[in-house]
């Protein structure tokens, strides 16, 4: 009972409200700081989350399997044969939500007016949808129907550039395995819209069977895309597939396939911490000042308490308790404020005025704040831990007075 918790907390609480204006201002400052910590973090998390989702959808999947050399030179020359029984067994396992094989080659598309360089995707429509292609994004016409669908689905932007439309014919040229130019006419059966214009401009879908036939590669594919259940930790999935994949295949997670995204996530974690600490530091001066003032005004009481037999450590404890109450109230207020501002924004913030800028970063033009428990916890821990640390300065200071000095101070 050396710290006399009960009487100390009573005194800490009452002392806090002796100068209620000062306490309220400090409380407000802490609340604003905590709000800013959490709110901005939620926005940033939302942005990165969106980028990662877009990135994973564009890849697609959490893990991809390619032939060695394909990523460096994405041509038809680096193909892999359709997965064998052993690999199939793993791909149909519990860990995997969906998988699909795709042909993905650079190609050229021509309408009667213009031509463009594109990425031609030969896909299995069902597999593609399972991997995250959103059928409702096809706003005109339809998505592919089966692996031998004779049609082609292009993006809205590409349609504009080619001055073509639904039902028109386009010619796709690409290179076969022996560098013979292969070409094929397709009828446009669907136009899709994507969050990123660069996707609309570049990615063209056709049936995998048709593309394989056009390129003359039999049943070979360019890649296997695999979707697991948790994008945060694809490592297990990778090692599982790697253990059964033939040596000439390269099995990589999205973190390795898109280092920009992976870095973005890391940088974001660092940024969140730096941001919280910076905000705390800006607060800390006011906090120390407030407590210093409080100690300064109460020097004689502190002397009295020491004279009555309160140990210096108990004095430190009492000042820290006062700071802890102040911090906790500020945190409570700040957390509530943050939640109250994030929740109404959960349907997204329209930032389409800078959509092209966001696209450069790989994010779409609607920002969904994402409030994560660990972030919330981190903000609270930063404030409490650093708050107590900084408060120990004035608290220690308070315990340094010799009782007689303190008592006789005017």
């Amino acid at each position, binding site marked *: 009972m*050396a710290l006399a918790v009960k009487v100390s907390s009573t005194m800490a609480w009452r002392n806090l409200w002796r100068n209620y204006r000062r306490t309220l201002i400090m409380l407000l400052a802490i609340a604003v700081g905590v709000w800013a910590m959490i709110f901005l973090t939620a926005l940033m998390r939302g942005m990165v989350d969106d980028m990662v989702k877009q990135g994973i959808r564009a890849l697609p999947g959490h893990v991809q399997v390619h032939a060695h050399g394909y990523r460096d030179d994405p041509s038809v020359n680096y193909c892999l044969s359709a997965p064998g029984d052993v690999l199939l067994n793993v791909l149909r396992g519990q860990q995997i939500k969906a998988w699909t094989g795709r042909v993905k080659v650079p190609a050229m598309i021509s309408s009667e007016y213009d031509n463009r360089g594109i990425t031609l995707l030969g896909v299995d429509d069902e597999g593609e949808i399972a991997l995250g292609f959103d059928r409702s994004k096809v706003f005109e016409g339809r998505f592919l129907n089966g692996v031998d669908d004779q049609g082609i689905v292009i993006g809205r932007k590409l349609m504009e550039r080619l001055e073509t439309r639904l039902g028109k014919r386009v010619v796709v040229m690409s290179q076969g395995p022996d560098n013979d130019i292969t070409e094929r006419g397709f009828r446009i059966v669907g136009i899709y819209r994507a969050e990123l214009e660069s996707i609309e401009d570049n990615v063209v879908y056709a049936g995998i069977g048709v593309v394989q036939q056009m390129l003359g590669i039999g049943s070979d594919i360019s890649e296997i895309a695999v979707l697991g259940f948790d994008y945060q930790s694809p490592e297990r999935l990778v090692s599982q597939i790697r253990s059964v994949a033939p040596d000439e295949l390269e099995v990589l997670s999205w973190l390795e396939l898109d280092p920009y995204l992976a870095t973005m996530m890391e940088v974001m974690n660092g940024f969140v911490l730096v941001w919280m600490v910076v905000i705390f530091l800006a607060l800390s001066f006011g906090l120390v000042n407030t407590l210093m003032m409080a100690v300064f005004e109460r020097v004689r009481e502190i002397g*009295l308490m*020491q*004279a009555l*037999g309160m140990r210096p450590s108990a004095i430190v404890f009492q000042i820290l308790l006062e700071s802890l109450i102040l911090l906790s109230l500020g945190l409570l207020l700040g957390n509530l404020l943050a939640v109250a501002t994030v929740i109404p924004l959960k349907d997204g913030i329209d930032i389409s005025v800078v959509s092209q800028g966001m696209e450069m970063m790989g994010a779409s033009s609607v920002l969904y704040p994402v409030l994560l428990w660990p972030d919330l916890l981190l903000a609270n821990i930063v404030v409490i831990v650093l708050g107590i640390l900084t408060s120990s300065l004035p608290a220690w200071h308070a315990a340094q007075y010799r009782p007689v000095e303190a*008592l006789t101070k005017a």
Partner: protein
Amino acid sequence: MSAIKCKEMCKFYPQGDAVIKGLDHVSLDIDQGSFICLSGPSGSGKTTLLNAIGGLDSLDSGEISINGERVDLLGKAALADLRLHHIGFVFQAYNLIPVLSAQENVEFVMQVQGVPAHERRQRSHKILEEVGLEGMENRRPAQLSGGQQQRVAVARAIVSQPKLVLADEPTANLDSRSMENLMSHFRELNRSHDVTFLIATHDQRVMQWAERRIDMEDGRVIRDELRRTA
């Protein structure tokens, strides 16, 4: 047996160019159960002596021991414990913690000591009644008169049943009747519980109660005599 032994205590305060002699080679022996009045003009060193014995102030030189323990060698925490468990203080001014009520002020020391709540309540009630403050338990110091505040301070000093009470002008704000009450209360405690009292005062009427009277001037003891008391 001697409860407090002081040897060659010195304490000087520089003030501007001059040096104020708080204690100038003071030696004293105080027996357990003494009832002593310290008198002398202000600035004569009474308060310095009380503070030194209570371990509130450090000495420049000299020794103080209480029950054989060298007080002047103790650390801050140990001094705090000594005061908490053995010494009751009544200060000249500024005696109460402003954010605590009268009762809470009285209970403060017991609370730090860790006395259970019901016992604290009982003892604080009793003592506040004895000093004539029943019904004012929940008032804050700012709502009490100077005399009432002084009585709360006295109640706090004796409620934890210390072995030594150091009181600096405890009757300063009291009328004659309250003064008489207070002194007889002190004397009663002194006799029944063998509590040592060291009371610094200007008040001739208070001195009437003393068993032993010590006069100070310029930090020195100029007279130290035993008296027969009423």
